[in-house]
């Protein structure tokens, strides 16, 4: 059997450093194991899709990538996660790691600040004080998140009172304001209408030129539309990782993957 690592070598020149490398990762909450034996690499500027039914461990996986496990005393993991070749276990400043990784949650979280402050928060946390600089960041991020036209006249109203779809785009703008190297989206379209979803998907295709994207989705077709490679997670294991095109043309290694994609279960 061809391992994931082997396939990576053939597809990418050896000198390209993976953005993210996960080795023998397993995650548990207390004594309950939710994910085990994960090995994968995410290359720069690719959209890496993760599909799988509920309770597959997808969200827990994302939480370990930006080391949010440190905020949850119940959560622990084994194995290693390297970001830009650096083992995140050995990083002293996890805050700096998180600031390079943008995260978008399933349900939009508009912070109870003005729209402007929502987007300006992260740059401010990083020490940007200049009003001009912040103005530029806010406008650029809102534009890229396809929200600028709808809110440019009311930047000082509360972000948490926008509609669901708008809040989700605000969340994306906020993630972009971090100027992230890696953007992780966790089922971002759950609370968003189809038209907005398509607009966000177009945005993601653009963003791919500048950053790496991990897209967890429960919509198989969304992975097909966006992802370069797709991993199938099921009940705490990574069943397989394939080029998305192979996955959807029936070239799966595992019967279960095909079953899930064709909607026979899950």
């Amino acid at each position, binding site marked *: 059997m061809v391992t994931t690592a082997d396939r990576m070598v053939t597809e990418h020149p050896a000198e390209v450093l993976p953005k993210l490398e996960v080795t023998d990762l397993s995650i548990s909450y207390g004594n309950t194991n939710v994910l085990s034996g994960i090995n994968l690499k995410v290359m720069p500027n690719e959209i890496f899709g993760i599909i799988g039914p509920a309770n597959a461990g997808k969200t827990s996986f994302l939480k370990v990538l930006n080391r949010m496990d440190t905020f949850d005393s119940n959560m622990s993991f084994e194995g290693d996660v390297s970001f830009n070749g650096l083992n995140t276990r050995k990083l002293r400043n996890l805050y700096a790691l*998180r600031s*390079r990784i943008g995260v978008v949650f399933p*349900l939009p979280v508009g*912070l*109870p*600040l003005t729209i402007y402050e929502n987007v300006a928060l992260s740059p401010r*946390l990083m020490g940007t004080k200049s009003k001009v600089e912040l103005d530029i960041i806010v406008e650029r991020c809102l534009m890229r998140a396809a929200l600028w036209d709808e809110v440019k006249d009311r930047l000082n109203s509360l972000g948490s*009172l926008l509609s669901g779809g708008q809040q989700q785009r605000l969340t994306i703008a*906020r993630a972009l304001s971090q100027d992230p190297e890696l953007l992780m989206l966790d089922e971002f379209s759950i609370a968003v209408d189809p038209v907005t979803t398509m607009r966000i998907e177009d945005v993601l295709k653009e963003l791919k030129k500048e950053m790496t994207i991990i897209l967890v989705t429960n919509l198989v077709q969304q992975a097909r539309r966006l992802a370069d490679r797709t991993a199938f997670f099921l009940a705490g294991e990574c069943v397989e990782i394939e080029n998305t095109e192979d996955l959807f043309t029936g070239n799966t290694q595992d019967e279960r993957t095909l079953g899930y994609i064709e909607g026979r279960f899950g």
Partner: protein
Amino acid sequence: MEMFSESILNRKNKRTQTLFRTLFMLMTLLLILPVLIILGTLIYKGGSIISVDFLFTDPIKGMTAGGIFPALFGTVWLVAVALMVSVPLGVAAAIYLSEYAPNNWFTRAINLAIINLAGVPSIVHALFGVGAFVIFFGFGTSILSASLTLAIMTLPVVIVATKESLQAVPEAFREACWNMGATRWQTIRRVVLPNAVSGILTGVILEVSRTTGETAPIMFTGAAFFLPFLPQSVFDQTMAMSLHLFVVSTQVPGVPNALPYGVALVLIAMVLLMNSISIAFRMHLRGKKKW
């Protein structure tokens, strides 16, 4: 038979419903009755004595005449100093317990201690205050000792109110901030505290109204029976409204009937005023909900 005509069961349910609603309403009315009677009596018997002079002159003729200014002044002092101690301490403790403390036996023990502190009778606080502040720390009977005793007594109110308003801020907001690379403190300062401050202030105002009326904790620690002059610093004794009411009602012969009622009326008005501010504040903030 028509689909929406009343069955016997419907009618019976309706009757029971009316019965219980009436019952609960009567209970509620019964509850506010004492309040109305107290206020009514106070206004009826003591209203005539209230005047600007009454509020702003000293008591004379062995406290059987004159005003209540030293007591009013002293109560404001006591409450202000108590707040200066209990608010920073209580808010800091609440922030620690709500935002930082791990969920282990130690934290649970502290929480339990706070609940128990709230249940300690005020006379026990008073005796503790005598032992700790008056004697051990050597502050003597003074505003400082009395206020510290009051502060310790009302600390649980501040802690619980602050903790509740911090926990009312959705966890998702914190997680969103942490995911951006914010530290716990940045998250607290930028997102959690600004949205909890209204609840904290409400708790503080409630504490003020409680502190204003307390008698036992200040009786042995700093409040004086009668003082012909105003306190000059926190190390002086002072008169206080609550103790003054006790004194003119029971300890001094020949007090005109209206005087204690007048003192009680002013005291209750102070407390009600603080409570009303608290309620108005809460309503104002509820009006502009942020999520």
